[in-house]
């Protein structure tokens, strides 16, 4: 069989070895095999089930259920140290060494350490909520390790760009590893979907600030894969993202990750960022072809005068639209704050009790029955729920305004007249994976020059 495979691999061009049809067949086969394996791997997770204990009549008493003890102090320190070192190493590999293979190797390490060993928790994505809750709730003290996980990647982003995404974030690198045959997405789709992370970020912050739920953790698609345990819906969500990730580069990072939204903003102003060789750019576009995330910005060319005029008009309109979108977004956020407030446990319980009292609910829940049996006055609960709802209303205004601002600035960015004349990575969307380095011909020449310089030391020749 192996000889037959070799003969197939070495067939002449006339036999269509490199034909598009063959490309699609091989890609399709790879993707289909991957899909089948991922689905079945997920099935194994159903093995981790809970079932009720047997009914003993021999007088056996169950041991008291205890919660697992917290992670040892020194291990928590170790986690932060590993995170710091990983970020530092990632920055070095991305900006100095500039070799994809080392970045990939570190990514694999992150999958095992932050993913399988630490089971995806604490992670920087979820830490946003802890910090938010601590800011708005005096009774919640955020652990310093969580604070470190929140701050360190942001601090590194200020200096070095999205090096966290490059090879440290366990969610991102898992998608990077399964990326086999990326297909480029049209610009309009990227920009449209690019608004969702900002919506998600705002929603998660609002829900955390009101002490409701940790939205990012509840909807972390890969946590169930790392823990090999989880609800069916979350498992399927993770699989869908991974399957999509086979042909779409990092779909979660680009179109959902709320921490990525923060890094997107900060990286635009970072001190150092991923660059190619701007003075030597020959417009071969190999970097753009290589980048699976659509993060390479193309040179703009010189548009015609009518197009320039149209663009200026769009720019003025977009700038004028920003405050309108902020206000409209805020108002819409306030409208949705009512239904959203039901995600808060107290509001949900008050809502259930009120539904029963007004006949809208036909069946009592265990929670409402337990509350009634507790004897607590229901008016207290109603008052508390009303207070939380007013917080949601204010938060809804802020959330909606934020989303409106993001949409408005997105429109301004798309209307801006660009003066780029080389291919360069967009610091906001570039996840510093290093694929462009290995494809840029001038980058390759530069690297070889450096290697030769190290191998053959230059000596000053004196006449």
């Amino acid at each position, binding site marked *: 069989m192996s000889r037959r495979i070799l003969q197939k691999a070495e067939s002449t061009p006339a036999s269509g070895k490199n034909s598009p049809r063959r490309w699609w067949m091989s890609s399709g086969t790879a993707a289909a095999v991957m899909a089948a*394996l991922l689905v079945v791997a997920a099935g194994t997770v159903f093995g981790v089930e809970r079932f009720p204990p047997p009914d003993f009549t021999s007088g056996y008493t169950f041991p008291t259920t205890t919660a697992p003890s917290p992670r040892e102090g020194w291990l928590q320190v170790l986690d932060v140290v590993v995170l710091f070192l990983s970020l530092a190493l990632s920055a070095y590999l991305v900006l100095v060494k500039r070799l994809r293979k080392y970045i990939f190797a570190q990514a694999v390490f992150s999958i095992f350490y932050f993913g399988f060993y630490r089971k995806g928790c604490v992670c920087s994505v979820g830490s946003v909520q802890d910090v938010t809750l601590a800011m708005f709730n005096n009774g919640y003290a955020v652990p310093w390790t969580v604070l470190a996980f929140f701050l360190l990647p942001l601090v590194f982003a200020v200096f070095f760009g999205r090096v966290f995404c490059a090879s440290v974030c366990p969610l991102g690198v898992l998608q990077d590893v399964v990326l086999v045959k990326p297909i480029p997405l049209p610009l309009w789709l990227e920009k449209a979907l690019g608004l969702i992370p900002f919506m998600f970020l705002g929603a998660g912050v609002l829900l955390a600030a009101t002490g409701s739920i940790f939205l990012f953790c509840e909807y972390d698609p890969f946590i169930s894969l790392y823990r090999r345990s989880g609800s069916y819906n979350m498992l399927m969500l993770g699989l869908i993202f991974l399957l999509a990730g086979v042909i779409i580069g990092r779909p979660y990072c680009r179109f959902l990750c709320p921490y990525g939204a923060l890094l997107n903003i900060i990286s635009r102003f970072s001190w150092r960022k991923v660059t190619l060789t701007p003075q030597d750019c020959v417009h071969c576009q*190999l970097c753009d072809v290589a980048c699976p995330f659509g993060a390479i910005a193309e040179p703009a060319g010189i548009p015609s005068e009518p197009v320039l005029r149209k663009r200026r008009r769009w720019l003025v309109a977009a700038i004028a639209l920003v405050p309108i979108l902020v206000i409209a977004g805020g108002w819409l956020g306030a409208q949705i704050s009512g*239904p959203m407030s039901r995600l808060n446990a107290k509001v949900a319980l008050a809502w259930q009790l009120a539904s029963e009292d007004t006949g809208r609910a036909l069946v009592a829940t265990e929670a409402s029955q337990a509350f009634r049996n507790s004897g607590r006055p229901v008016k207290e609960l109603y008052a508390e729920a009303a207070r939380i709802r007013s917080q949601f209303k204010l938060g809804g205004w802020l959330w909606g305004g934020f989303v409106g601002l993001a949409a408005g600035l997105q429109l301004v960015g798309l209307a801006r007249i660009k003066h780029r004349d080389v291919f360069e990575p967009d610091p906001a969307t570039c996840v510093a994976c290093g694929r462009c380095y290995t494809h840029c011909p001038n980058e390759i020449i530069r690297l070889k020059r450096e290697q030769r310089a190290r191998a053959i030391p230059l000596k000053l020749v004196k006449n």
Partner: protein
Amino acid sequence: MAAPNPSADANIGHPWKPVAIRVAWVAGIYCALMVGLLLFDYARSQKYNPTNHPELLALKEKLVKKPNDAALAAKIRSLDLELRVHYLQYLRRLSQGSWMLFFGAMVLMPALHFATWRKKLPRPGKYVLQPDLAEADDNKARWAVAGVFALAAGAALYLGSRFENPLDVVLARSASPQASPQQAPPSPAVIPANPPSAGEIARNWPRFRGPGGSGVSAYTNLTLNWNIQTGENVIWKTEVPLTGPSSPIVWNDRVFLIGASAVKREVYCFDVPSGKLLWQKTVGTPSTAPPKDEGEEKQHSPSTPATDGRRVYAMFDTGELAAFDFNGNQLWYRQWGKLDNPYGHAASLDFYKNILLVQLDQGDGEDGKSKIYGVDTATGKDVWVTEPRPVPASWATPIIIQAAGKDQLIASGNPWMISYNPADGKEIWRAKILNGEITPSPVFAAGLIFNANDRLWAVKPDGQGDVTKTHVAWSGEDGIPDICSPVSDGKRVWLLTSSGTITCYSAGTGKKLYEKDLELECKASPSVVGDTLMVVSEKGTVVFVKSGDQYQEIGRAEIGEHVMASPAFADGRIFIRGKKHLFCFGRNKG
């Protein structure tokens, strides 16, 4: 720069491609084998699942019935242990297998990557060659971003508009100074000792579908036209604290309703002139937990109360019956316990002189649970109880008629329509004509008793014993309702199905006169006001039809809310209960 021709270049694969292909095959076969084994093991493990093993569940059910059976308990423990051992072994194999599969996938993925890798070839920048294309792409992107924002806005508006918050209702209630009509202890009402006269009964609307359960209004000075938006002919509209499908009843200047939720049952009294809620009283204990086997669609309090002008009587599906005076003082209370009725008790109350009639049809018809109770209106004690009725659970309301020189209590069940003496509960005659689930109530008009169920039956009420073969005047088979009771003006009988089809028969001959599909869903029974048939749809559309041998619609009006209850009529007033409010329509200045 000329575009490269991929087919001309033979070396665009990765240098590791040949090895990668071999590794991919090996890893792929390995992973496929692991998948197969895991699937096979999973399928095999299902028969050892201790949570839903049929034999174990069956044994446990037996143990519930025989809790002292030691041998059975030992068998359960032994089987449970065996299943757990097998299942835990499966979980261990699963854990090992999934790790092996994972590592196989870790080898397969990079192998696939290198096997499918193709050298990237340069191509000219599209925007450099076509600068105006950038504007076209940006333009599409701008509209796409606007589209996403618009979509999000639409979703926010939709969710916000659909959001009904009962919290607002209860918070508003607790903030209102008049929120608690229960606060002032009412003084006892003076109750006449004598029962109401026929005239008093005829002038009021004392039970479900009015006097005799006919659905015919004694008053014709009613407005058949109103406008909820402008308030034209809307005298008042008052919020009802708890919702329910039971109908309003009226006595003089009082309108009574009941409402219930999963945990609370209440009786309400409204003032006819102003619509003000005069009092609301709780029946039973509010924290009583509802039965666990209720479905989400179950309606509470479908049974309409009754009043004889002295007291108001209310029956709930929890088996509770209570009587209040007109000032809201509870006079007596009794409890039958949970009733064996699959859809919940729904038969409304009626009364005969000083006897309150409670039809409690339950069970399967052979267990003797179905009975009619004649209860003393003053004390709540039994005056008489019928023999066990040979009928299963039913939901129709009995009626009192005067026919063949005597008062008769007509009660419907499957398969018997039975006539009793309302004074002592003794059976007079019975006809075996009914079938299926008995929900529409009988009506008496033109000297015949009409009962629509499976077929429309017209029965002569002057028999004795089993009159199945002798006293059926006629029967019809079209337009048979499943919920709404029929109505008759003495010349015609109208049936209304829950899908909104009206079928009109001649009361004397049974000839079908017309059939009309209103294309409206209806739960409320139709009524007759003068020479107009009134139909209320579930969505709150009221259709007025001229009563005649042909269908002729006069007009329509809207309630603005869902309606399941049948209307009540008083002098110049129509009362309709919506999902949230009680409406009073009548001529006003608008």
